[in-house]
């Protein structure tokens, strides 16, 4: 840096003088370098460096020497016309990266380099150990069955099937290609609800009341059946196209699972859909399956993925039997019931869902 400063001042000094000064400095530097080398040689003469301390000194010295070498480089750099500075710098870096004379890379010998690497490795390893221990204790402290805080995930959100990009159901009745993927999506989604499967895995529990299961947290919990056949016309059993082929589409609605969520007793969560904006009569009629248009209480509470393995989320199917065709109809389906919030401004999926039906004929 001193060099740089001087060069900034350079215009005030005539060139001849500059050279002279630098030459002198260079002599000094060389002299110093010699001195260091001598010292180093002496150290070598002393004997085999079997003590770590000696090694250390050696290394420090080498580093000092390196600095002198670099200084020399710079002196030379100064002496030459300014146009070469970038080239000089490149050379300097090159030298720095690998110095063949001193057999050093990055200003260090392999030995000191490895020592430093080891020390840093140890340092970061211990940091890693610290965070591992932290996380380990954290996970120990957290119950695997019951989330510590669930206020962020409450109240429940809604999801609808079939999957449609941006929730625009846009299809032409007479062109199966435009709705075939909805059918496939629904079929896939309902595989888990097949009656046979449900009967095999889950229990048939009494409707209209919570399916409470006492016992330890870590005991496996039973799940209530939700059979595909509950969905009647929207089960895809009678009409494998879920009404899409006739322009009367079925849309399934599922409430997001939340551990420990219980709707109000005797007042199951209901689904109700209507036109969001525009003419109320654009929909005309909707059939809900199950006919109550509600999620039965027996599916609550949910005990969590770990123990409630076969839990089957209840569904409500909306069958839009007489929607106005050839026009986009925005539909809003809301959950109704106590402990349900459906008017969060920022979250358009909490307690409600808005989608568009545009059925062409």
């Amino acid at each position, binding site marked *: *840096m*001193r060099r*740089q*400063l*001087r060069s*900034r*001042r350079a*215009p005030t000094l*005539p060139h001849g*003088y500059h050279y002279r*000064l630098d030459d*002198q400095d260079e*002599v*000094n530097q060389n*002299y*110093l370098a010699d001195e260091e080398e001598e010292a180093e040689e002496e150290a070598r003469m002393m004997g085999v460096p079997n003590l770590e301390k000696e090694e*250390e*000194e050696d290394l*420090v010295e080498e*580093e*000092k020497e*390196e*600095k002198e070498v*670099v200084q020399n480089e710079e002196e030379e*750099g100064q002496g030459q016309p300014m146009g070469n500075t970038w080239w*000089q*710098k490149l050379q300097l*870096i090159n030298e*720095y990266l690998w110095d063949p004379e001193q057999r050093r890379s*990055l*200003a260090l010998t392999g030995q*000191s*380099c490895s020592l*430093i690497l080891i*020390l840093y490795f140890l*340092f970061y390893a211990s*940091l890693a150990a*610290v*965070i591992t221990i932290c996380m380990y204790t*954290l*996970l120990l402290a957290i119950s695997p069955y019951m*989330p*510590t805080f*669930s206020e*962020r*995930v409450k109240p429940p*959100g809604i*999801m609808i099937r079939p999957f449609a990009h*941006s929730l625009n159901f846009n299809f032409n009745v007479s062109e199966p290609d435009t709705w075939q993927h909805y059918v496939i999506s629904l079929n896939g989604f309902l595989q888990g609800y097949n009656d046979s499967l449900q009967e095999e895995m889950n229990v048939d529990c009494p409707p209209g009341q919570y399916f409470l299961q006492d016992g330890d947290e870590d005991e496996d919990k039973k799940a209530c059946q939700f059979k595909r056949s509950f969905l009647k016309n929207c089960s895809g059993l009678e009409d494998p196209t879920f009404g899409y082929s006739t322009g009367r589409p079925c849309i399934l609605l599922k409430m*997001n*699972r939340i*551990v420990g969520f219980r709707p109000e007793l005797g007042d199951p969560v209901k689904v109700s859909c209507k036109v969001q904006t525009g003419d109320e009569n654009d929909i005309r009629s909707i059939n809900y399956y199950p006919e109550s248009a509600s999620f039965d209480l027996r599916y609550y509470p*949910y005990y969590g*993925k*770990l123990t409630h393995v076969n839990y089957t989320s209840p569904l409500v199917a909306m069958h839009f039997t007489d929607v106005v065709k050839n026009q986009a109809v925005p539909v809003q389906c809301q959950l109704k019931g106590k402990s349900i919030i459906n008017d*969060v401004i920022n*979250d*358009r*999926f*909490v307690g409600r869902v808005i989608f568009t039906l545009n059925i062409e004929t």
Partner: protein
Amino acid sequence: MKDIQNSRKEDGRETSSRGRKDTCWNRKKNHQKQETEEEPDLDDHKLSSEDLEKKYGTNIMMGLSSTRAAELLAHDGPNTLRPPKETPEIVKFLKQMVGGFLVLLWIIVITSWIIYGIEYSVDPSASQDDVYLGAAVGLVIILTGTFAYYQEAKSTNIIASFSKMIPQQALVIRDGEKKTIPSEQLVVGDIVEIKGGDQIPADLRLLSSQGCKVDNSSLTGESEPQSRSCDCTHDNPLETTNIVFYSAACLEGSATGMVINTGDRTVIGQIASLASGVGNEKTPIAIEIEHFVHIVAGVAVTIGFIFFIIAVSMKHPLLDSVIFFVGIMEANVPDCFQATVTMMLTLTAKRMAKKNCLVKNLEAMGTLGSTSIICSDKTGTLTQNRMSVAHLWFDNQIFVADTSEAHTKQTFDQSSGTWTSLAKIIALCNGAEFKPGQQSVPILKKTVMGDASDATLLKFSEVILGDVMEIRKRNRKVVEIPFNSTNKFQLSIHETDDPDDNRFLVVMKGAPERILEKCSTIMINGQEQPLDESSAEAFHTAYMELGGRGERVLGFCPLYLPAEEFPETYSFDIDAMNFPTSSLCFVGLLSLIDPPRSTVPDAITKCRSAGIKVIMVTGDHPITAKAIARSVGIISANSETADDTAKRLNIAVEQVNQRDANAAVVTGTELKRMSSEQLDEILANHSEIVFARMSPQQKLTIVEGCQRLGAVVAVTGDGVNDSPALKKADIGIAMGIAGSDAAKNAADMVLLDDNFASIVTGVEEGRLIFDNLKKSIAYTLTKNVALLCPFLVYFILGVPLPIGPISALLMDLSTDIIPSIALSYEKAESDIMDRKPRHKEDRLVDKALVIYSSLHIGPMQSLGAFAIYLTVYAQAGFKPSTLIGLREEWEDDDVNNLEDDYGQEWTRYQRQYLEWTGYTAYFVAIMVQQLANLIMRKTRRNSIFQQGLFRNKVIWVGLASPIGIALILSCGLGSLPALNFTMLRVHFWFMAVPFAILLWVYEEVRKLLIRLYPGGTYIIKTILFPKFPTCTLIMFSSFGHKLEDSSGNRDIIKNSYKKRKKIV
């Protein structure tokens, strides 16, 4: 007529331009001898009046005609010095807006807006986060820029108020009439009359003179009045007596002269423009800050670019990669750095102003701290700038008088009869009088009419004897011969106050050898004794001794005239000298000196322990200079000059090895003969140097010599022609009281009390600010790593973003400014003035600092913050293992049933809200750890307990402010759109505390190791002062500067010369 005028004009222009060219050329080869420097190319002094009339188209009797004058005025411009070019305010403002990091920040702003533009064109419902980010960063830029500009403008204003000039008037003859006009309307050829008390309004060639004397001190530095006549006495226009120069003061007499140069073409004007020509070098602190900016910007851009490339090659959408790039840049750039630095400097400047250092250039403060040589004036800076009685000699004995600023009592033995006699002479043989109406003013502060030594003696006797005027009244003065340079004595004849004694008393004082010649007896213990050989010997010894101390010695003698020969009615005639002036009775000697300021020796000692070399540069006689240097410690008690050695060993000076002498006294004439190498050698070889009989021009030579040795030079000055040296110096210090406006303009700092000790205070403050700046940078840098890591982890591991760009920005705002400023109030660690001056290679931001901050503390801090971040997610249902690779689903707006580890399903907004909680938690975690970091950074070597945990009261504010801001953000304000802060559960606020303690313990251990092994073992050096070996170094440090550690004191000057010596 016109032709003549034209040729004159051309000639004049050519003259001036040539003059300037010459001086420029001289500046370029300023290592060479300087004596020819700044010699204006004038020959008017050699011309006769008739030739002058012809040349300037004027008439000596009638002057110029008004119309002609108006023409010339229009052509040449007003007779004022053109002020140095001012940068327009708007340019200054814009400079503040794009300086340093702000360029990077602007890039962030523009990129984020462009990104939004692209997103918007694709999808009009695109998230507006980028717009908000851009706006927020833009706001920060404008705020910090405005702030910095405001601070700078404020400090400039202080100075501006300093240099207000009072308009001057000049008496000029025009159209044959005498007129008074403002002196700026003078033109070449005007005939001007000057009289005592005037300031010379332009360069004048004198046409007639009546006892005119001028004080050229502002030009030549010599304060002796010089008489001026209309004869050409010297070829050199500066030496000849028939030219007087602009800005000089006419002390007495009157003269008529013709204006030969006006405004910038005057000799002073040329010097002033020369001063503005000496480029303002970047101050070390500016260089340091630039260096820091380069490092950080380099790191930011490099890392950003590397990850941008990785992102693109990993087939991330280009836009996302750009956003990512912006995020990394944003996290890396300390947004408020500029404001912080300016604020810190301003605060220090205020503190220094209280200690009588007015800092003009904020950054100059840091320079002061790295000062390694101070070239100081003597008069007024090291000394009190008033004569004072230092010693008395009577009864064959030397008595020491008290010379301190506040002396009220003299403690020497006053019982001897000789003293009574001496005191009477001192009181009577004195032409000075107090100005009336100063009863309430302390004696030493009273204004006196009369010559300097008389005034000193008057005050001296007033202190000792009481009312001198009363004594004089009782001893009525009959007749008086004032001091003149041929007689070299002053004499007065008085009636005595004894009514019985009607003899006349003749009292005499003057140059001791002249007084002794006139004496035949000497008074010892009140008794007159014949003046024999031995008493003459004693006199000479005393005289030599006092003279050798650089003091001005006066001898005193009385004589009672016999009443028979000189009755009361006798009329004395001073021209005929009808009274005896020999065979008097010698009483004693008294020596005067301008005594050093009492605070100076301490200050010099401090400088010495701080490794700062103090060089005295004075126009005074070498003996005086050396004496003062010795008494203040510039030449320490046990070191000697070559002359001293020669005297001690009784050998010739040439035989003494110059290098063995520690001290050196160099005179102006010697310096003239020296080559720059010889000067360098002197500067490097002697630790104690006094330059005496220097012309102010030579000051520049000395400054340049010091700078050639790589020293950071502070120079004091007051005269106009000190301004090039002040400008050239790394830090120019002008005198607030004695200084001229030009000097104050050229200087970086103004000493309000002209006291050298204030410089040392300044140095201390400068070092402190450098240290504290280092601390706050270390404090700031650490957090940058903790802000960078989230982006890297987010990108590499695909976790939800731990902290958003806007939160990161707010992090900067809330934890940077106030705590950093609190650090600037930190007291010095005990050893601040025992350290050697900072070497230029000892960077503000060196590798050790960067590596320690970003590879040790930074990762530890990120670790703590990540632990809290992971806890927030884990407690909500997302375990760390689940988070990895979750990003794409997490950020998918169409996924509103993302399952967590408990099987719960999250809508997009719920996840978003959780993410913001994560931001807040991460924010709070860093904030808490930064509090620990702040406490840690209070010291660099000492344990925090040694420093006193909270001796710095401002640190409380520094600690409280981030907490306050975090609380405000979390509990209310943060819920604003774009800010995205959420309420945080109480326990998250405390979770980072163990990590903060861990940090602090780590730091304490490091400090302990440093203290235990001050030189450092290899391990300590590698780990704690790492010379980091991998490629990071190339990123972290700018190319080409030396690769070495920053610890240890390297006195390059000394070393390089030692080596040179060895070679020789």
